[in-house]
């Protein structure tokens, strides 16, 4: 793994201020400002979509009009004007690309600044990257190798063209279009995202990875990801995000749907480091994401791992519906909120099948004036005999102006199931801090070290490629919170 050293070095270079604040100058094609039925049709026709998908979008749009923005989360932000957002912006249409050399050099430069050297990555430990640049995928690597195994890994817009049956069958099957306000909005206006299909009995030979990047000013990003893993198959999917510095808030309302069949396993990892706004909370991304996995098959397994350090406001609950008998759901999360960030994040584990198991480990860190909330639900339905859940959520407070909140819901409807929940909130132990200081670390380094220790249980779930980056990120996110 020599080549990863470069990634590590790049990450090391990331200094105290938010380094990803630059704007790539690309000509882009925009839909008119605002949202109405015509915009939905415009997006659909831009993507050359079949009629059923347009109808589906329009139906979602109509549902969205009747819905209300959820207000139960412990986050506070000015009302979003949904008519003041561009719902479609894409880098100018280009002929199909055959290799990375054909990609706009501006684009490549952006990724280099981010510390993700594409060319190195191609040779790197088997990471195929599906680049999403402002809602449109421009290049996909390693597709050939994946195709040999029968794995489909492509932008969802392409999957609509080439594999309409699969898309039609599964889109909206985990998260119905009217599931919630933002999911309905996404269903109406999603522009692109990833599509993964792993056929029966295939262990995906490499980690699949997509780097999202919000670029165009005022362009809401509405990604839609759909991952289907057939019997006895396995896939690990990485999602990482950074965004340029902007003064205006940007909305990001993605939908991610996972489907796991008998004995299938999906591992979904996220490192989210979008622009959190400046020290006073000006600017920053609104991250309102709906993620849900459906363990449809017996003995299937879905595992969510997330490291959330960015975004001004996070509203995100990656969930598992454990439908198949003996299926397993996991949720590992680190959420860091500093300065004026607000995070309301957690998970839902819905146990339907027999002997289903779920584990929730959530570590929340609040610093500065930030508010960090864990909100989770564990529901054991009537037939989930022998189901088992263990939840642990710990919060760490750094500074006396921040808040840490825990809001778990437990609904148990079957006696043979067992649900355990524990939560703690405390500040960094004086003893630990003293110990580190005594050994010559400064307060900031010591804090970073202790916090990383606090998060260890989650970090060890991350794939290698992410673990290093994530550790650094936590340190960077907490800069300026002590002393």
């Amino acid at each position, binding site marked *: 793994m020599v080549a990863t050293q470069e990634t590590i070095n790049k990450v090391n270079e990331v200094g105290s201020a938010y380094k990803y604040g630059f704007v790539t100058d690309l000509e882009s094609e925009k839909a008119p400002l605002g949202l109405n039925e015509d915009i939905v049709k415009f997006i659909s026709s831009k993507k050359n979509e079949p009629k059923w998908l347009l109808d589906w979008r329009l139906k979602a749009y109509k549902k969205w009009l009747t819905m209300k923005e959820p207000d*139960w989360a*412990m986050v506070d932000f000015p009302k979003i004007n949904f008519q003041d957002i561009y719902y479609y912006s894409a880098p100018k249409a280009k002929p199909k690309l055959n290799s990375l050399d054909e990609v706009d050099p501006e684009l490549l430069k952006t990724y280099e600044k981010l510390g993700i050297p594409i060319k190195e990555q191609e040779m790197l430990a088997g990471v195929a990257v599906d680049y999403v640049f402002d809602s449109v995928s421009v290049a996909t690597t390693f597709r050939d190798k994946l195709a040999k195994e029968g794995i489909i890994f492509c932008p969802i817009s392409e999957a609509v063209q080439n594999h309409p049956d699969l898309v039609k069958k599964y889109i909206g099957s985990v998260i119905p279009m009217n599931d919630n306000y933002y999911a309905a909005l996404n269903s109406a206006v999603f522009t692109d995202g990833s599509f993964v299909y792993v056929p029966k009995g295939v262990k995906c030979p490499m980690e699949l990875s997509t780097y999202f990047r919000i670029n165009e000013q005022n362009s809401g990003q509405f990604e839609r990801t759909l991952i289907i893993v057939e019997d006895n198959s396995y896939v690990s999917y990485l999602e990482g995000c950074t965004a340029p510095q902007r003064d205006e808030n940007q909305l990001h309302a993605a939908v991610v749907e996972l489907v796991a069949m008998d004995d299938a396993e999906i591992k979904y990892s996220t490192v989210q480091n979008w622009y959190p706004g400046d020290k006073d909370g000006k600017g920053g991304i609104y991250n309102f994401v709906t993620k849900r996995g459906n363990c449809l098959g017996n003995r299937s397994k879905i595992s969510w791992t997330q490291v959330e350090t960015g975004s001004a406001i996070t509203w995100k609950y990656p969930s598992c519906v454990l439908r198949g008998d003996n299926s397993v759901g996991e949720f590992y999360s680190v959420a860091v909120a500093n300065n004026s960030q607000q995070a309301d994040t957690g998970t839902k584990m819905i146990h339907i099948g027999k002997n289903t198991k779920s584990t929730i480990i959530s570590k929340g860190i609040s610093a500065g004036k930030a508010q960090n909330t864990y909100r989770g639900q564990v529901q*054991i339905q009537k037939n989930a005999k022998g189901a088992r859940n263990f939840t642990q959520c710990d*919060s760490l*407070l*750094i*500074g*006396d*102006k*921040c*808040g*840490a*909140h*825990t*809001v*778990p*819901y*437990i*609904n*148990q*409807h*079957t*006696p*043979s*199931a*067992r*649900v*355990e*929940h*524990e*939560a*703690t*909130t*405390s*500040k960094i132990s004086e003893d630990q801090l003293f110990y580190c200081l005594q050994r010559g670390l400064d307060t900031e380094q010591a804090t970073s070290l202790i916090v990383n220790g606090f998060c260890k249980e989650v970090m060890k779930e991350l794939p290698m490629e992410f673990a290093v980056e994530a550790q650094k990120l936590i340190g960077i996110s907490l800069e300026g919170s002590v002393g």
Partner: protein
Amino acid sequence: MLHNIKDNYITSVNNYIKNFDDKSFRKLAGKDFKSWPDPLEETWRLSRLGSLSRKKIEPISLDAQEPIMSKLNVVGSNTIKFINGAFRKDMSSNLPKGVSLIELNESESVTFLSKIKNSNLKNHPSANASLSCTPSIVKLSVDKNAKIEELLEIHFEGGVESSSVHPVLFVELNENSSLSIIERFNHTGSLIMPLQLIEIKDYASLNSIKVFDDSHESYNLAAHCIIMSHKSLLNSFSLIKGSQFTRSETHAYLNGTNAKLNLNGVYISGNKQHHDLTTAIYHNVEECISKQIVRGVLGGESTGVFQGKVKVAPNAQKTDGQQMSKAILISDKASANAKPELEIYADDVVCAHGATVGELDDDQLFYLNSRGISKDKARLILIKAFLLDIISESVEETLHDFIFNEAQSALSSILKNEIEEFV
């Protein structure tokens, strides 16, 4: 949604107060009683009152018939009786020295109302309906420095079909006083809406036991507001076993430094009972301690709810807040819901909560089985142990047997369906 439906009961409460003066506390309270809590409202999501709005209920009239006095297990000799929500001096015994009991006059009642309105009970249906319709607000007060050794019993009885009763009690412990009370709710009738304000001044301490044992047709929506001062102490224990639907909601404000609160509870539910223990503890100042242990045993088709919130204000440093809830399901159709919630704005705190829901431990059952104890008997032993544990921790020793017997009687009625050879 309920709030747009013209509701019988709400109309009759409003009729009840319509002839009072506009400045009367009854009217001031009643004007806020416009609807039952919406099921979409977060704290009422799990305990829905929809069926109440479909019932024909009226506030009980003052000349309502009196109940045939049930023989209650009297533990002590000092008894205070509330019949149909009204304090009955003629049935109550003399009070020990240092304790006084009065009915508040109009201006005192307005002050009482404003205290309730300043708390998070302000929109609670029992707060508004009971202040509108109560016969009187009764204040039980303990003098400064008075240490009352004798146990005080308060019995709430009465109630008739299709009517609501509204006992309103204000318990005040002045500086450095102490008191032990045991309250029992044994109503029949449709709707019981007890409202209580408990104020514990500096250095005062209160031991309080509540037994909710109303008849199985009734709804009991008890609401309590607790205000604690510097170095005050409250040991509170509630046993919920009666009613078809009981929700005991408590808001405790720790407003003086070094206050200590133990807020424990047990619910034992069977048949189609619904029992809800909802608490909120507000740590508003430094160095207060709150501890909470809740246990539930659920049989039949019952549902249990525990919602416990601990909120720590920004300056409430050195707070210690602990909470533990456990529920055991002993029948296939029972269900349990828990929502232990932490809301923390201060950094130098130690707060934790834990919640478990499940059935009896297999290993423990096996252990007893292997020693020749039948499966049913083993289950019974384990359930008893589960409750005995918390009872002995939260109740004074002299009352152990009494409370345990109360719990046992509820247990036997729910277990006889589940365990064949119930002993």
